[in-house]
């Protein structure tokens, strides 16, 4: 081969077979190119299809989020307090609507409340999805389906429903239209974990594990009913109550009037008798000078320090002078009083002497010990910080000993009373079901069991002989004891004698304390000309009626034996 081609131009001739072969090769090459082009087109189209993002949101909200569900809320016995119902919501896809005018007219035959111009504007344009009307009934859904308008469709939304209506409004709170908690335990659940669950898609359209609250709906109902009754009976401007299990810290009932309808959350912002923003939760976010109910705290602190003994006597003959002011007694006895008498007659003078024996700094330290100067650790988000001066002057310490000059929430008070009767073990209140063993881990000992026994005696004594007798008459047999407080309200800058806040802080049954309760009635009037306006007549009676109703439900049987009361008397006084 090398010899032939060397130095000469070669003439090459292809045979017929080879020429055909070359032609075939060329054809195959063209076919390959054509095929490659074809596949490239298909591939390109595939990529194009894959890259287009279809907008599945409705006005910026993912459909998944719209159908997000919330766990049912049950009371401690399993009765529903909040459930999800599935409701159809109407939306439109304007770019798919052919005849806007026809759609508007047809829709308005079923939903005449929709504004014609608004609807027309809404349905014209090139938008993907727009809401027309949310949360309709299945009957309306059926009617609109039968109209057969193209581009008008339904999505099933979860809507929160509160079967108990207003009765547990402040406990449950409310949700917004996107099913997110805005208040109460609903908001707490969101802040806690639910929002996370929803965001990772675990809470969508599925049944969720129900949440058990500590509330007993029967007790809640009884309390709500009695408070409503108190509002009319005493022509009060507000009333509130809270009941707590002293051993577990569970809140059994919590009600505050005026209230709102959680099924229609905007009612929260309605004026009540011309007063703005009056429908707040008075138990957690209301702070008050709780008046003489504070004497229980002063007594507990003083008796526990050992500086004051239950057998001591104090001179209550003369008012206590602080510069220009003289503090005197409301039901003045003006004689030497023993410690139980000071409590029973609610003597301001005596209580000041008791506090002074304890020492004002020790008294202030005791308030810190029982959590009076901090927000109570609690699940409801509506909390307000109490107002307790950091350092007590002589006069502030004196007024504080009977509950003036410092403001705490009723929740603080019920927690303190619960601790005093529960052998001095203070726990944190909770809205969720909790066993006693779990609660024990939160126990902080604030007073000794001996002092606790003395406080129980004092509280029972006040019910038998003091300002709680009207209460005791109603709740006879249930061994209730408690302290009244009639705090004068500050009107302008001075204390008003006729605008008062009546409080009753109680516990029952005192031979084996299970429940503590605080009831307040704001600005009560005399029920009739013969009755008084102090706390025993209103807050006390309300407490009595509530206990009478709920004690049997809570498994406390009435016992009239006087042995139980005489057993409460400390050995030194027998």
């Amino acid at each position, binding site marked *: 081969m090398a010899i032939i081609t060397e130095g000469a131009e070669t003439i090459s001739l292809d045979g017929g077979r080879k020429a055909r072969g070359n032609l075939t090769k060329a054809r195959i090459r063209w076919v390959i190119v054509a095929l490659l082009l074809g596949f490239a087109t298909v591939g390109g189209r595939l990529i194009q299809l894959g890259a287009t993002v279809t907008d599945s949101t409705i006005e910026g909200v993912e459909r998944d989020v719209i159908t997000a569900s919330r766990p049912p809320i049950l009371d401690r016995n399993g*009765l*529903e307090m909040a*459930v*999800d*119902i*599935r*409701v*159809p919501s109407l939306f439109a896809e304007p770019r798919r609507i052919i005849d806007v005018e026809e759609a508007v007219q047809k829709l308005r035959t079923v939903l005449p409340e929709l504004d014609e111009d608004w609807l027309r504007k809404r349905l014209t344009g090139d938008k993907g999805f727009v809401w027309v009307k949310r949360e309709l009934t*299945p009957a309306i859904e059926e009617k609109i389906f039968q109209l057969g308008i193209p581009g008008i469709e339904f999505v*099933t939304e979860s809507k929160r*429903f509160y*079967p*108990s*209506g*207003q*009765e547990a409004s402040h406990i449950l709170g409310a949700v917004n239209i996107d099913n997110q908690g805005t208040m109460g335990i609903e908001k707490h659940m969101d802040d806690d974990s639910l929002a996370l669950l929803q965001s990772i898609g675990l809470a969508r359209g599925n049944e969720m594990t129900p949440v058990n609250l500590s509330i007993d*709906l*029967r007790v*809640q*109902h009884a309390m*709500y*009913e009695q408070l409503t009754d108190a509002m009319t009976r005493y022509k009060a401007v507000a009333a509130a109550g809270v009941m707590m299990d002293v051993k577990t810290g569970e809140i059994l009932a919590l009600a505050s009037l005026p209230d709102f309808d959680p099924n229609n959350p905007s009612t929260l912002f309605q004026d009540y008798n011309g007063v703005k923003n009056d429908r707040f939760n008075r138990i957690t976010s209301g702070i008050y000078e709780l008046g003489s109910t504070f004497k229980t705290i002063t007594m507990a602190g003083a008796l526990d320090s050992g500086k004051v003994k239950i057998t001591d006597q104090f001179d209550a003959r003369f008012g206590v002078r602080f510069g220009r002011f003289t503090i005197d007694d409301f039901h003045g006895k003006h004689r030497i009083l023993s410690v139980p008498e000071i409590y029973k007659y609610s003597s301001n003078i005596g209580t000041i002497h008791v506090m002074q024996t304890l020492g004002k700094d020790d008294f202030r330290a005791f308030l810190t010990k029982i959590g009076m100067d901090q927000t109570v650790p609690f699940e409801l988000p509506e909390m307000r910080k109490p107002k307790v001066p950091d350092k007590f002057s002589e006069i502030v310490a004196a007024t504080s000993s009977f509950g003036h000059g410092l403001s705490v929430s009723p929740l603080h008070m019920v927690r303190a009373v619960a601790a005093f009767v529960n052998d001095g073990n203070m726990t944190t209140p909770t809205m969720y079901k909790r066993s006693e063993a779990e609660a024990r881990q939160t126990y902080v000992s604030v007073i000794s069991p001996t002092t606790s026994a003395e406080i129980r005696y004092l509280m029972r004594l006040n019910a038998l002989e003091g300002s709680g007798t009207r209460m005791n008459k109603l709740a*006879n*047999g*249930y061994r209730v004891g408690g302290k009244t407080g009639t705090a004068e309200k500050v009107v302008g800058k001075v204390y008003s004698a006729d605008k008062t806040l009546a409080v009753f802080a109680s516990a029952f049954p005192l031979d084996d304390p299970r429940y503590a309760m605080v009831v307040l009635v704001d600005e009560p009037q005399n029920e009739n000309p013969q009755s008084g306006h102090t706390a025993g007549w209103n807050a006390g009676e309300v407490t009595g009626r509530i206990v*009478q*109703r709920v004690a*049997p439900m809570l498994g406390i*049987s*009435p016992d*009239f034996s006087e042995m139980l009361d005489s057993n409460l008397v400390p050995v030194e006084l027998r």
Partner: protein
Amino acid sequence: MIKMLNAIMVCTSVVGLVGVYALKYSVEDIATAKVSLERKIDRQEGELSLLKADWSYLNQPAHVAPIVARHQEALALVPTSQEQFGRMDNLPMRPAAPDPAALDALLSSLDAGIDPIQQLIEAN
């Protein structure tokens, strides 16, 4: 040989074609059935949620209390007072039951003409 092979392959592909199409259509049918079932489940779940809400509403103390109040007079309903509660150990002991055997014996002896009381009187 090659013809034979071709025939087999044609047959296989026809069978394959028919099979694949049959599968496709059956899958489509099942998918439609699934969607309609899902719709049905969804609708029933919605109805169920409404029924559940209704049930819990009707069971609320807030709902029952007005009904009780309405029929209070007709049914003479009043709240239970403390005195109405009792305990088992507060009940008095059961009185001694009469002795039926002794009574039967007395009656049969009377029937037989023997009066035990008369006998007692006579004995004294």
